[in-house]
């Protein structure tokens, strides 16, 4: 117990650590200024809110246009922002047209045991310089 008493007596000496009376007076002044600044800030926000609510009330029946217009603007924004479902499909212009005639279409052997030989259709689009053009090609390339 004596050891504990000794320690307590030493720790009690810390109460002599003090910043002095001047500090406490200055602290109170600083706090007053801070409080005034906060109250001014709050009052400016409150003033802004009050002015907005007054303006809103003075609009009369037209005041309902504001939320309606805002909702419409949000809806339009969402409409253009969200990608549509068919945007991921391959454009039709990129599809190469081929003959749909079954007689000319290459066919696969019924049995997979046989060697697969591709049958090249007789009707082939004219090759230009060895290049085959797609049917949807337009413009100067088509005229070549």
């Amino acid at each position, binding site marked *: *117990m004596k*050891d*504990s008493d*000794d*320690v*307590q*007596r*030493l*720790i*009690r*000496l*810390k*109460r*002599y*650590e*003090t*910043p*002095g009376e001047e500090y*406490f007076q200055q*602290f*109170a002044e*600083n*706090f*007053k200024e*801070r*409080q005034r600044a*906060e*109250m001014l800030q709050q009052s400016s926000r409150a003033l802004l809110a009050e002015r907005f609510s007054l303006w809103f009330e003075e609009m009369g029946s037209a005041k309902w246009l504001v939320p309606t217009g805002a909702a419409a603007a949000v809806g339009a924004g969402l409409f253009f922002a969200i990608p549509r479902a068919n945007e991921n499909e391959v454009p039709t212009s990129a599809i190469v047209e081929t003959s749909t005639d079954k007689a000319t279409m290459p066919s696969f052997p019924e049995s997979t045991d046989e060697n697969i030989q591709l049958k090249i259709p007789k009707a082939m689009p004219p090759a230009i310089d060895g290049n085959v053009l797609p049917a949807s090609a337009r413009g100067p390339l088509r005229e070549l």
Partner: protein
Amino acid sequence: MQLTETSLSAMPKTDSPKSGDQCGSTGDISGEDLRKKGGNAKANPMSERRKMRKVDPDLELVQRAREGDTAAFDELVVKYTPKLYGLVYHMTSNHEDTNDTLQDVFAKAYRALKRFKGKSAFYTWIYSIATNMTLNFLKKRNRRRAYSLDDVDLAIERDEDFIEATSKSDPVREANISELQERLNMAMQQLSDDHRAVVTMFDIQGMPHAEIAKIIGVSEGTVRSRLFYAHRQLQTYLDDFRK
């Protein structure tokens, strides 16, 4: 007798209440007194106790402050700054941090004033706010932050405890004021935040166990346990000064 933590919880409460404590020195009516008066002690013990309970001395200022009287709150600030400064400073050992934290404490107290129900004394309430905010600040603060210590009042040289601590001629024990101050702060900072809080309130500020328990929201037994453990730790850190 070797004190253990279990026996501490069962120790009788011998502390005398001090300022800020609502019950006690001004006279609670016990059940026995009510029976002597012929009244039914069980019928209205609470109402009798309420009548005899000491009125919060800050009640009027608090009421005015709640109604928007900033001058009333300024009076409360002037009244409690020294005590609250001591609490925060001895927990942080840093003057600048104490200044900033204390400003935040009073700002928060002002904003929360309307929620103060008066179930406890204003002093207890604002002390709780200060303790909690300081503990939260310490959790976020870098532990390696340097000390920024206040000057020591020269009145310490007349203090009996100081004289006894520095009177021995042993070179290890000879310590000037600044060295002693540094050693004490280092020892306090070795404690955990919760232990340092109870040591600050009990040993440095002289608050009774009951009041400390109300402020930090634990039982008196817990306060005594924490103090016991903290004192044991401090004995190790301050071993040079006790030989």
